[in-house]
């Protein structure tokens, strides 16, 4: 007899989104509910397998009775809530947050953001030519990956992925505070002097390209990076017996980077240095 594991049945929470009835299992976030209802809410710091830090504040919605707007990505749906996703107030706040972000960091490699900037009519330039920006040089101190904090939106995903949520290495954290806050390793050292184990899990979760494969970084610099020409093939890592799933990104018959499917029950997107970076041998055709 095959036992089919059934989860504990969850109660449904009933509330309204933009005037329509919504029912979601207890524990769902407002964002889950909105997405289920087909509402498009921008998110940047929210990640599929990490506890949302709710730091970017682009997913704000209006909840009746709340003095401020509410981050959809982390607020749990409550019975009887009245949520409005597309009011002038929510749109204003999203627009401003997008403008503030785009005026201070380089979002050119952040997927989707260009469309949101357009949709919300964000004009990051209006803060003037003197507007403070990060303006940092990319840190290239090892052969595996590059840290380009000029693109960092401080979403804390890499911190959480390196720390207790994924990797448990705790090699990176946020240092400094306010506008000067930066992702850093201990003593702001080069990566090679830090606790980093090069699992690349931080690259896996980085939503902006601030952390990227050296291969991708170099190709972008050379103008040869072309996602439309790439294929993705998910396979099994051959190094050890764990059996992690690898997704090989291939352009012109060369592996250009390796990611890992987040819905894989074994690894949830985690890899180790070999699986993530050790693909050169595949390409030794000599």
């Amino acid at each position, binding site marked *: 007899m095959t036992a089919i594991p059934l989860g504990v049945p969850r109660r449904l929470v009933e509330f309204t989104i933009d005037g329509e009835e919504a029912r979601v299992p207890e524990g769902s976030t407002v964002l889950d509910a909105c997405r289920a209802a087909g509402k498009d809410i921008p998110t940047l710091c929210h990640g599929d397998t990490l506890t949302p830090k709710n*730091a970017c504040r682009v997913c704000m919605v209006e909840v009746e009775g709340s003095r401020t707007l509410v981050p959809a990505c982390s607020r749990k749906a409550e019975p009887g809530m009245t949520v409005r996703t597309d009011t002038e107030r929510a749109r204003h706040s999203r627009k*401003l947050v997008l403008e503030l972000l785009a005026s201070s960091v380089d979002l050119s490699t952040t997927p989707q953001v260009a469309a949101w900037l357009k949709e919300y009519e964000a004009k990051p330039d209006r803060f003037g030519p003197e507007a403070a920006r990060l303006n940092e040089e990319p840190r290239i101190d090892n052969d595996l990956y590059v840290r380009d904090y000029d693109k960092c939106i401080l979403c804390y995903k890499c911190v959480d992925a390196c720390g207790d949520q994924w990797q448990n290495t705790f090699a990176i954290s946020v240092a400094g*505070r306010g506008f000067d806050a930066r992702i*850093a390793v201990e003593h702001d*050292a080069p990566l090679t002097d*830090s606790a980093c184990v090069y699992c690349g899990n931080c690259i896996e979760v980085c939503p902006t390209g601030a952390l990227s494969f050296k291969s991708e970084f170099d190709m972008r610099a050379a103008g040869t990076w072309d996602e439309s020409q790439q294929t993705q093939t998910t396979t099994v890592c051959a190094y050890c017996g764990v059996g992690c799933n690898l997704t090989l990104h291939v352009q012109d018959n060369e592996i250009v980077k390796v990611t890992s499917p987040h819905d894989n029950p074994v690894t949830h997107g985690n890899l180790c240095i070999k699986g993530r970076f050790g693909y050169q041998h595949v390409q030794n055709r000599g």
Partner: protein
Amino acid sequence: MDLHFGDSKPTDDERAAVDALLGPPESSWEGADRSDADLRWARGGREARDRRDLLLPGLHAINDRIGWISEGALDYLCRRLTVPPAEAYGVATFYAMFSVKPRPATVLHVCTDLACAAAGAQELSAGVEAGLGPGVHVERSPCLGLCERAPAALAIKAGDPVRTAVCAPATVRDAVLAATSPDSAPEEPPAVMAVPQAGSPDLVLLRRVGVVDPSSLDDYRAHGGYTALRRAFELGPAGVIREVTDSGLVGRGGAAFPTGRKWQATASQPDHPHYVVCNADESEPGTFKDRVLMEGDPYALVEAMTVAAYATGAHRGYLYLRGEYPRALRRLEHAIAQARARGLLGDDVLGQGYAFDIEIRRGAGAYICGEETALFNSIEGYRGEPRSKPPFPVEKGLFGKPTVENNVETLVNVLPILTMGAPAYAAIGTATSTGPKLFCVSGSVDRPGIYELPFGATLGELLELAGVRERLRAVLLGGAAGGFVRPDETDIPLTFEGTRAAGTTLGSGVVLAFDDTVPLPRLLLRIAEFFRDESCGQCVPCRVGTVRQEEALHRIVERTGAAAADDIALLREVGRAMRDASICGLGQTAWNAVESAIDRLGAYE
């Protein structure tokens, strides 16, 4: 956890500073020399990790001894506490009083905030910088909580022990002297000097300041000390909460939440242990009332925390004291030790079989740590970043456990509630703002200081008492997070409902008066700079918004009318998003004061 420590070693001094706090290390796993046994035996990881909350005291220990925190020292501390160095580095760089770069052993903090700016802080810091050699690091500081004696300076000379000298009102000569030899700096005036009403029989909260000897427990008892705690034991926890609820007491820190309800909510949580946290991180520019209470009547706070703990079922309390208050720290350390020695803290408080003790935690220069959840993170050894709510502290607070958090003034109110009874207490003030209220008055007045008035007195009456000067231009109510009102609005009643009706806020009770010699645009710029500096940086609207606002204010500092209109519109848009979308009160209120100056004072017209 992969722990990785670099090659840098602590100096003997650094090691001694850490060991003085934590005791000597037991094995090479936590930083001792390697012995044979260490190769086969490891112990301490989990235990040490459980004391992560000693990270902040550890950083203080190093900074106090050396003046800054080197790589070797930080790594050693991390090894002792099993904390990843990257995280500890993130914590060390969060606080303004720490430095991870070498600097001289003496740091002179010169306040450049609102009251001090109005009293000539610019000239003071310029003069001090010119007068001091390279042996002293001069730091321009946000409000030091000495506004009644502006301009103010605080010298901290690292060593064993660390030496401090407070200098206010400061002249260039005095400040230089305090920095070069803190030991021979003149004594600070007693706390009572900040209480112009001292001796008045009407005082309730300030009654003992200047009357009791702050170092003597007996004197405190002779002046009515510990009658409230005795009454609490008679009433039982539920009875205490009933009294506090009936008294109508609401939090004095600015949020005005009913204290009884908070206590009830904590007391009834099934999860244990419960904690009591006293928020003594008074950093709102213009506020100094908690300092005066703690310096002048320290046992009152110890007693009030004990009452709060008893009522809510807590056996451990944390007193989070701002790092810039050396005298309050000394007095409270002494008071807690005395109370412990005399059975008023410890396993058997007052012989009632009730256990309670208090640990002091020193802040390290971060306004944001006054936000209750940021304060929990700070105590726990993390960056002082606010947590998002819900869950609320009554359910998941310090160490994830039910926690009641009150500020000093709120707690001290509990004593008269218990001694005079809820009805008599509630008869003070107005129907919805009950009890006495402390106000910190500074700026252009003849008698700056702390005033105690029943709720309902008007702003004008308070200013009258403090001797307001001619040509008043503006009053900042509630501190940097509050709002400005005009000189013709002095009939605003000082109650929560009255200020709300007038479209402003009572906030933490700050009343900063400015006459027309104070350049308003510069003042607003200082407020904007303050928030930019103090933002924790976690969320975008606040992290970037405070910068954009400061930039806009810089652009219009010399402009008015049409020339400023575009930037004012920009300020409004940014301000609105900050108010709506920031995680915590800092970002949500950062624009209040400037907005009120534009709308009520016509600052750029």
